[in-house]
């Protein structure tokens, strides 16, 4: 079974530029998550989708971050404009909801460096 795919793996941009990350979840997984992991910290949830609807985006900085999952499969996360403090690893995860014991499966992440 293929895992969660993310691209690009690495990205370097200058502050005030825009950037987009892409995630393809495991086939059949209706729930998709984006996390931000700053160096030396644990991942923090940015947004959770169920199919193409947003379940939780309370920690998404909406003035600069946006995410979409138009067809309920792939998702993109965008930052515009980027700030230095956005340097982090952006992790995508997916799960098959509805079971108490369901597990989130994480992709390898996109490492972003903002200069």
């Amino acid at each position, binding site marked *: 079974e293929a895992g969660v795919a993310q691209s690009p793996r690495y990205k370097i941009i200058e502050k005030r530029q825009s950037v987009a990350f892409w995630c393809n979840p495991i086939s059949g997984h209706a729930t998709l998550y984006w996390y931000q992991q700053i160096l030396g910290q*644990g991942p923090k949830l940015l947004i959770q989708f169920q199919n193409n609807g947003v379940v939780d985006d309370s920690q998404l900085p909406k003035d600069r971050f946006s995410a979409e999952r138009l067809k309920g499969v792939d998702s993109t996360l965008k930052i515009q404009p980027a700030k230095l403090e956005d340097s982090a690893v952006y992790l995508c995860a997916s799960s098959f909801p509805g079971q108490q014991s369901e597990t*989130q499966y994480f992709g390898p992440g996109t490492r972003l460096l903002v200069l």
Partner: protein
Amino acid sequence: AQSVTQPDIHITVSEGASLELRCNYSYGATPYLFWYVQSPGQGLQLLLKYFSGDTLVQGIKGFEAEFKRSQSSFNLRKPSVHWSDAAEYFCAVGHASGGSYIPTFGRGTSLIVHP
């Protein structure tokens, strides 16, 4: 609000020695608890989880963890560490959201294994 404390930033052990990684949580109700491992350049992988029942939980790769409500702890253990266990370990406490469970992660403990 829920939170997780991992008091050790780094732990160094010799290969073959036993391991215990500490985790303390704060949560108002019965917690859902997780341990994840993150190897360099890879995504997070779930080692084990506790939802209810037996307080001693067995996971993958020979790891186990014990839920102690009186101490608000969920420490991870392994009787004999292998060099391949060197990685970052994250404890997390989960809350329900949209039929899934959203983990709040600790800052992680880096495990260094000496030959």
